[in-house]
């Protein structure tokens, strides 16, 4: 039996890796992948807590998160395609025009 704290620790590590990826990486696709890590750390938390409480709510929440995140990524990739059509680059620094 794996104790609850291991799952929480895994969730924290994934969250930190995801957040660091969003902040530090300069490639837009890698940033989007890091976002997935960030949101999946939440799913691990929900399922682990749901199992701990013996409650279905956590699993239901995780399913909602998975579905909505898929929609979010679809929108993000659509926006990225529109952007690449205007300027073919995937570097965050090349995209930035507005400052201040």
């Amino acid at each position: 039996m794996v104790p609850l704290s291991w799952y929480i620790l895994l969730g924290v590590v994934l969250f930190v890796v995801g957040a660091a990826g969003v902040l530090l990486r300069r490639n837009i696709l890698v940033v989007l992948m890091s976002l997935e890590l960030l949101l999946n750390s939440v799913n691990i938390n929900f399922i682990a807590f749901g199992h701990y409480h013996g409650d279905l709510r956590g699993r239901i929440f995780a399913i909602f998160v998975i579905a909505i995140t898929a929609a979010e990524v679809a929108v993000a990739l659509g926006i990225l395609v529109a952007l690449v059509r205007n300027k073919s680059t995937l570097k965050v620094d090349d995209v930035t025009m507005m400052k201040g």
Partner: protein
Amino acid sequence: MSAAVLYQWVLASLPEIVVVTGACILLIVGQLIRRGQEHLIVWAAVAVVMIAALATFLLAGEVRPAYSGMFIADRFAVFFKFVFFLATVLTFLLSRKYADIEGIGISEYYVLLLLSLSGMMIMASAADLLSIYVGLELMVLCTYVLTGFLRRERRSNEAALKYVILGAVSTGMFLYGVSLVYGLTGTTALDGMAAAVTGGPRDPALLLAVVFIVAGLVFKIGAVPFHMWLPDVYEGAPTTVTAFMSVAPKAAGFAVILRVFLNPLVAASDVWIIVAAIGVVTMALGSFAALVQDNFKRLLAYSSIAHAGFAIFGLVAGGPAGIASVMLYLLIYAFMTLGIFAVVVMMRNGDFSGEAIPDYAGLAKSHPGLAFLMLLYLFSLAGIPPTAGFFAKFYVLVALVEQGFVALAVVAVLLSAVAAYFYIRIVMVIYMRDPDRSFDPALTPSVRATLALTAAGTIGIGLFPAWFLRLAQTSVFGG
């Protein structure tokens, strides 16, 4: 679950059902409409919102919980829903001509606005962290797409990409907080959490969870430290969408924050100190950064950050008086912001972008009526009596002083004085400079109607503030 219960649940969420159904029908019908008939879509969209508003009004009499505690239709939600309806209808009226000029006058634009509206309505009525999350995502997914609607414009692409990435990070933080709350309490229902908590309000894990949730929500209202996206997104998005985003999603964010803060669990923790600090820093940053802006949309973005900071002060005051003052603030803010954006939208005509503030030099010489309306909105945003903006700030300050936060009230007044400077600077440009070009605003009848309605709201609430305050107060006490 019997048919009678199901009927009650459907009845409670009838306005949301109307909006979602209407949006889906418009999505299909919009493909069949011939070129040159696009105005039919606009009027159909307005009609959908009007029917939803009628349903909301008729069902406002009693509190209706629905969907096993996920959803509640109470007067608090009704007040916010009317702010959303107002913002959406005025955005529709503004969009017709602007969308033609920018080449975005297709039915999806209106459908996305309607779906975004339905997301905000769910947020206002949500009584569970799960339904808050679903409503929030429905709202922001539509606004991501609307921000990037000018597909061939690089600024619009960039704004949408920044918005979607930072929005997803804030969603992640919100969800992480929710998962911690679920782990600590074993429930996600807002009213079930207080009963289930075991560690007391000063439990560090609980405080961490609340901080994550607040951080995720604060992003949506554009407060420091999650404000960086706001100026870029406001500048890059189509101006009509900027007008919509600066009012409706902001009000929806406040609706959720207020509902979470009404919760005794959060009220008992010391989170208000963090919120007060956020309010001060937000207002200071918004006011000072706006001083150096030359782009009108960017200036209004910083102005909206400053206004969000002021509304947060009402949150700090707390209690029924503080919450009522925040609600009234958001209503007044909707009128004056949509008014000033109506002018900016209208100025976009031909090769004239209407985005640079020096372009407005000498507007008063050729269009005195329009210049006077701008003066009215800008004075209201600055908080000069007898406009509505003054009373919005006044009631927040009253609530603060009543609760003993005198120092905060003094800070708020001082920062408002800074903010007044950049509004008055625009008034000076309009009235004191000589025009260096002729103006040709796209003044269609629907834009005229928007200007008339927002001006009436700005003056009307300024003349009868007590009546509107009572409206907000009864909405708080209505449960």
